[in-house]
Each structure stands twice: as structure tokens, then as C-alpha cells.
């Protein structure tokens, strides 16, 4: 637990709309970091572009606001270089599941130890309310002039198909529960996805607070719920159980940790098969010169090119 003296939120004025779900997310994130004892300078929040992507601006931890759709690769580069940092991604549903979907999928394949907070509001907030990849087919929010003609993608299932090793869902207005989920996600060693149902009162008048609150429930309140794969042979059964949860939506919406796979090595551990000392000596820690001179024994690298 980091002392309350330490500030995680910046002085910057938050230019979100009143009542926006993002306020809940930023508070939950702050609480999670504080409770986990991660000091501001050891955490990095990598934002996409969107209302959601502005989150790093409002924090007093390291912040990297990137390009639309690209926070995952940037976060990956940071983590691989300096693994001691807690690396978070805050990005919208458009950012991660639309323009950035190729990176979203690839992140699952790599399993780098980053935590993705997906602000799932069903709309493109910052560009004034167009349908996002999670908005249902034929739904017409007030910002749309005509009903949506694209069907939604299922983020939980997509993450599962892509190999994510931690998949959870939270709700922006349940700050405490969300905080706990984020903590678990950060503590998980591997790529973690938290799909956060985030009401956008300005543009999404369908997936509202009321709508969600009639449907959401926490899976851990069900008997015997255990989403954790401890051994490879448990994988299939756990996946099936997660998939069943993933398919729920219209009537009931499950929240909580939906899947966690502890059997898949994190990317740096995989890299160890190539560079045995990489976790002790990640790129950041490696010297590259002595007195401004190269340190590599280049002759040894050249040796198989030698002709004499």
C-alpha cells in the first residue's frame, strides 16, 4: 500500500463528460496501484486515442499517449525493455477491437506481461458517437442517424481465440470490484485483458447504467467458480466454461475473472530460451559502451564470414 500522500492522479482537469464511466475506471486504477504498492514512477499507462485514451493524461504515473489502435505494440516495447515496470494499456473498444484488432490478437500470441484495460462503451466517444465494434446489430443510439449495420465482436471470445492468459470483465461504476479485478490482472504474469463495461451517457443511450445494472452479476458468486488453469490438461474444460460465460449478454452479463491460464510461459520467459540472462539483464539494464566505445567482441561475430 502506497501512502495517501503519494498522488496517482494529476492536477490536470479531466475533460470527460459529467457522469462518464471513465471516472470510475481512473479511480479503480489508482486504488489498484496504491494497494499493490506500485509507486507512480514504476508504472506506465499507455493510452490509445479516444476519450479512454486520455486517461494517462490525468494520471501522475508515467504516461504514454500513443496512436489510435497502437497502444499494445508501444506497451510491449516498453515492457520488453524494462520489465520491472508495471505496464498498463487504457484504450477504447474502437481502438483495441477495431483499428487495433491485429495487435489485440497478436498480444495474445506473445503473452507479454501487460494489462489491457478495454474501455467498452459501444461507441467511438471522441469522434462523437459512431458505432464501435461492440455495439449490437441494428441498435440505434441517439448519436446514430440510422441503426448500426455492423454486428458486434465478442471481446472475451476474441481474447480466448488469441491466446490471452487472463480475461476478466468489470463494470466502470463498481469501483471497488473493478479495483480488485485490475489488481488481479496486474498481478497475473502474462497479457491480461479487462473488458470494462463503461457507460457513455453522452452517446450511448442503450447500454446505460440502468441497462447494465439490470443484467450484471459476478461469476465468483456462483458456486464452485474457478477460472484458473493450473495444469495443461485443465485447459479445455476451463475454456469451455469461459466460452459459456462469454456467450451471455442480452439477459445476464457476467463480471469478474473469467479465465486465467497459468501454464503458458510469459514472453520474457520464452526469450530466455534465446538469451538466458534476459530477465536479469533486460535491454534497459544493459550497458552499450565503455567510455563511449563499443563493447561487443565483433571479431567473434564475424568469424563465420571470415575468408582466409
Amino acid at each position, binding site marked *: 500500500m502506497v501512502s495517501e500522500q503519494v498522488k496517482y492522479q494529476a492536477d*490536470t482537469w479531466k475533460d470527460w463528460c459529467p457522469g462518464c464511466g471513465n471516472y470510475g475506471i481512473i479511480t479503480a486504477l489508482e486504488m489498484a496501484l496504491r494497494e499493490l504498492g506500485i509507486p507512480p*514512477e*514504476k508504472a*506506465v499507462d499507455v493510452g490509445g*486515442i479516444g476519450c479512454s485514451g486520455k486517461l*494517462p*493524461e490525468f494520471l*501522475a*504515473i*508515467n*504516461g*504514454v*499517449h*500513443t*496512436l489510435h489502435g*497502437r497502444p*499494445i*505494440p*508501444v506497451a*510491449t*516495447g*516498453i*515492457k*520488453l*525493455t*524494462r520489465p*520491472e*515496470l508495471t505496464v498498463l494499456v487504457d484504450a477504447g473498444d474502437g481502438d483495441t477491437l477495431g483499428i487495433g484488432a*491485429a*495487435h489485440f*490478437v*497478436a498480444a495474445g500470441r506473445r503473452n507479454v506481461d501487460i494489462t489491457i484495460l478495454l474501455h467498452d462503451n459501444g461507441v467511438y466517444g471522441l469522434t462523437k458517437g459512431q458505432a464501435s465494434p461492440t455495439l449490437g446489430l441494428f441498435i440505434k443510439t441517439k448519436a446514430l442517424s440510422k441503426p448500426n449495420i455492423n454486428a458486434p465482436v465478442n471481446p472475451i471470445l476474441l481474447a480466448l481465440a488469441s491466446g490471452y492468459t487472463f480475461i476478466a470483465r468489470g463494470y466502470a461504476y463498481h469501483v471497488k470490484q473493478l479495483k480488485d479485478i485490475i489488481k488481479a490482472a496486474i498481478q497475473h504474469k502474462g497479457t491480461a485483458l479487462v473488458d470494462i463495461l463503461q457507460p457513455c451517457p453522452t452517446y450511448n443511450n442503450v447500454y446505460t447504467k440502468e441497462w447494465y445494472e439490470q443484467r450484471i452479476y459476478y461469476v465468483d458468486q456462483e458456486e464452485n467458480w474457478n477460472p484458473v488453469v493450473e495444469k495443461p490438461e485443465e485447459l479445455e474444460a476451463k475454456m469451455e466454461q469461459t466460452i459459456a460465460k462469454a456467450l451471455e449478454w442480452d439477459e445476464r452479463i457476467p463480471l469478474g475473472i473469467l479465465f486465467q491460464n497459468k501454464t503458458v510461459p510469459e514472453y520474457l520467459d520464452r526469450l530466455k530460451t*534465446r*538469451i*538466458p*540472462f*534476459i530477465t536479469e539483464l*533486460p*535491454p*534497459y539494464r*544493459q*550497458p*552499450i*559502451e*565503455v567510455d*563511449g*566505445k*563499443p*563493447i*561487443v*567482441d*565483433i*571479431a*567473434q*561475430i*564475424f568469424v563465420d*564470414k*571470415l*575468408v*582466409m
Partner: protein
Amino acid sequence: MVDLVFEIGGPQGGGIESAGQIALRAFMLKGYRVYGTREYHSNIMGKHSYFNIRVREDRALAPNLPADIVVALDAESVFTHYNDVGEFLVYDTGVLSKDIDSIQSMSKYLKARVKEELDANGVPHTVEGVIKLLEKRGKRLVGVPLRSLLKTTAEKAGVSLVSISRAINTIGLAVGMSLIGVEVEKLQKAIELFFAGKQKVIKPNVIAAQVAYDYAKQNFGGIHREVIPDGPHINTDKPRLVVSGNDVVAMGKIAGGLRVQTYYPITPAADESLYLEKFEDFPLTPEAAEKLGLERGGIVVVQTEDEISALNMAIGASLAGARSATSTSGPGLSLMAEALGYAGIIEAPVVITLYMRGGPSTGMPTRNSQSDLFAALFQGHGDLPRIVIASGDHEEAFYDAIKALNWAEKYQTPVIHLLEKAIANAMKDIFNPDLSNVVIDRGKIEKNPPKPFPRFKYTEDGISPRAFLGDTVVWYTSNEHDQFGRRNEDPVERIKMQDKRLKKFETAAKEIPLEDKVTLYGDPDAKITIVGWGAVKGAALDAIDKLKEEGINANYLHIRMFMPFPSDYVKSVLEKAETVIGVEGNALAQAAQVIRMFTGFDIPHLVVKYTGRPIFVAELVESVKHILRTGDKKVVLSLGQ
């Protein structure tokens, strides 16, 4: 002076690559400098491929034609290269009756041209027809029963014919070598070097070489050419390496302290990253190891899902403190356009090694070009300067790779390092690089950064001290921002920040020495100036030598840095010359346009090539003479298959 061209062709994926590599080594062992140009299709197996090897005493930097010896390992090679033959054609007597129309892999356009020529000369459309034509032309024709020699080899080696089918290349090669008196031992040593460690492959090939030499001695004892003497570099104590452009850039990056390389596979860039993967874990010099208390270093090489990810990931690595780079070709750079602007506005040091191939679009992916200069200079949106350099040969490429890493960090900017396929895939001998003059300069790094950190502090020179993510609290945004990296739209601050970003490049322009930007080769007072860049250098240096032999005094202005551009110097050189000829490998004469943009000087004569093949020395010499004779504004080169 020996200036020999040895060409060897055969089907892709069938060992032609090895044959070329071995030939290069053999000539090196004979004491020569070598330059091996590789041509191949965007295809895994079956299409035609060849090596053009230039062998010289002093310097070998460019391909040339005609070839003193052409070794054609199959019928397609005969049809494709008979016009390249200067003196000898070594061919397979087993394919004499092969009709050109039966060769499915061959381009119908080339077929049509060949048939037309054969018809005009009244010979049939077969290999035999070609041989007849070359006989008429007085060429020396060396038919070899490749299959039967392979059989002999298999017998001698005590292995099956199938298992050593690729040794057929060695046989053809060996016959060619024997004709010019490269000792069989040298060739065999070359085989051992190339297949290092793979005894199973070495043995039959060594035998094949012997079989071929024996056969040649017996059969063409009389027709061989004036034997080349031992070259000046024989048995010296200055070790030489043979490297591709891809290899040498990778080596430069390792020396330069690269710690994260990201890439998405693409021709002709991928080999650089594959080479780096080999040295993900590399040894330090004993002195460094001692001082640092470390034995090894490591480079994280990440194969990403696409080029967008590659550059963004490299940027992330850079912000966290690693020297980082990515490597790609035109299509990849196009995809990186947005991230390039991102690196620009957040002032992230990052190197993009850009291997140019034939465009536009997918274009001719395995062929050469210099057509990505505009892209390198202007890719991305907004007011977005960067550093753009181009290497002219393998040595330049090595040192430029290091400098690029330095400049990226010093000026906190993306650096685009341009190379051509012609360099990337060309094999060249180089002397062991000298690191004693190499400097690693990381620029301004704040040792005790305050929290939060004014990452974009206004300074005299436009360069703000850096701190890495995690050293303190640092903020970045792709939006316009204030000194703390916080989003800002205030007009007054915007002007200051935009000016700061531009100021850096003025600083770079001032600080980077002229010799890193441009070099004038030859007589500075010559009345004719050839201006070029990249691999044009090799052909141009040879060309000015040859022109001098013919009494024409020309110099060569070699441009190595396009941004910041050495405008004053270039302008002064160009204005001084009576005749200026621009030479480059693209259709729009991009460098000429860029020179006009940066100097106002309008280059009056252009020599351009955009067939996807490199510029051969002979055609460049001819084109210059043509321009001097006719005053023509533009010559389009087209030599080479």
C-alpha cells in the same frame, strides 16, 4: 590489371546461391577483391536466378557486363545470358536440344526477343542454336556433360546421385574456374569455408570440383584463357570477410549498441533481422567484460504482426531506454508512416533501416531500386523532418548503421537509413572493420531527473535532456504538448514547441560534419560532375576511372545525407561544373528533384535506371559519353536480365 566478370546462372532454390557464394570465396582466396550481385525472382523454387561476380585487384564495388565467363547451369540460363558472354560460355551438353518454348519458367517477353534474334541469325530456337550464334560471334564455348560428371562424382564419393544432385552447380562452377586458372585447392577451400562444419556436404562438393577440373584439363587443356595471376591480397595478414549488405548493417547495429530490433519479414530486409537473431546473445570484448563485470550482451529481436507494430514497438523500447531499430522495405515504410510521425512528435530516437526494392506498391519485390527517396523524406503527415541517410557500399553501410543509432539518440528523432537491394543482397569482401574510431554517443540524458520531468524543455539547441520511463515520471503524447509532455493547444506554446522541434534539425545540420553528408570523388576541378547516391557510387567510381582512360575528366559527387541536406556545398560543386549529370535508380529522378528543392539547382542531364537491375559500369560509361556527345537530357539504362 585484372578486372574480371564471372557470371553463373541456374534455377532458384537449386544451389545457385551456394555456387555464387563459393565462387566469391575462391576469388578472395586467389587474392582478389570481389563484388557479387544476386538476381532472383519473388519465388521459392524454380525460376531463374544468377550471380554476377566482379573480380578486381583494388576495389570491386559494382557489377559489370559483358562477363568474361558465363556458366549456364541449365537451358534457361543459356537463353537468358548468351548476350552477356564476353569470352566463355560454359554450358551443359545435356540440354543442347532443349527448345526455348519448352521452358515454362521463362518470361514470354524474353523468349520472344531471343527467338527473334535467333531467327534473324538463322539458327534454331534451341540451346544448340544459341551455341551456333555465339560461335559465329567468336565466343569460346565450353560444353560440359554435367550429368555424367555428377555421376562420376557420386561414384567417387560413394553416395547416391539424388543425394548430391546440387553438386551439379559445383561442377559447372569448377569448370568455369578452371578456365581462368583458379587452383582447384582454392575452390575446394572455398567450399569448406562456405559449408563450414557440414562435412556431409563438403565432401561430395570437394570431389565434384576435382572431377570437373580433371575433366576440364583433359578436354579443354588448350582453350583456356590467359590465367589470372595471384591477386595482391593473397596470403596477407589483413583478414577479410565476405558479407552481404544485410549482414553488414546487422553487424553495425550490434557494434552500435542496438538492444531491441523489431521486424516484420519482407524482402530484401528480413535477412538483416535473421542475422541479428543469430546474435541475440553475443560476447563482449575482454576489456569491456572486465570493466563491466559482464560477459555477454543481448539483443531482443521481435518478429511482430506487421510493420505498424514493428515501429510502434521500437518506439516503446526507445522510451524505456533501449537503442532500438526496425528494418523494412517500401511497403513496410508505407505502413510505418503514422508511427514515424509519432516518433517525430514525441522525439523518440529510433532507426528505420529501409531497403529499397522495385516499386511502386509490391512492384518487383526482389529487384533493385532507388525509388523510396521521396518516401524516406516525406512519409507521414504534418511538418515532420527526420534524418535521412543513404549508404553507398558495404563499408559505408556498417559505419552508417552505427552513426544512425547515435544521431537518433543525439537528435531524438527517427533516422531513416536507406540501402538498396543491390547492396543488401550483394556479397562483398571487406576488411575487418575498425572499431577504434567508432564512438557511441547517446546525447543528452538526465542523470537525476526531477519528478515530473520536463521531457520537452525548451533549450538553445532544441534538444531537451531525456529521462527514460521509470527513471522518474515522464509523459508523452502524440498530441501537441507543453514542456512536460502534456497535451496543449495554446497557440503561443504551440509555436515554441514546433520551433523547438525544428531547431533540433538546424543543430544537427550544424554539428554533423560535412564528410558524413557528401563526398566529392576524383578531380575537384573536373569540368564534368556526376552526382549520385547509394549504390550508384560503385558504378560511378569505376566510370570516372574508365572515362579518364578515354581522356574524359569527370568527378563524382556522392550524396550520403538527404536530410538535413548539405545545400550550400552541393550547390557550390554543381554550379562549378560545366556539365552535371545526375545518375539514379528510379524513373522520376527523385534525387534530382530533391536537389532542386534544397538548392534550386536544376540538373540538366539525367541517367536513370528502373528495370529493377543495378547499374552496370559499362552502361554508365556509355551513357555519360552519349550525353557528352549529344547533349541529351535523359538516358534510360536497361542492361542486365
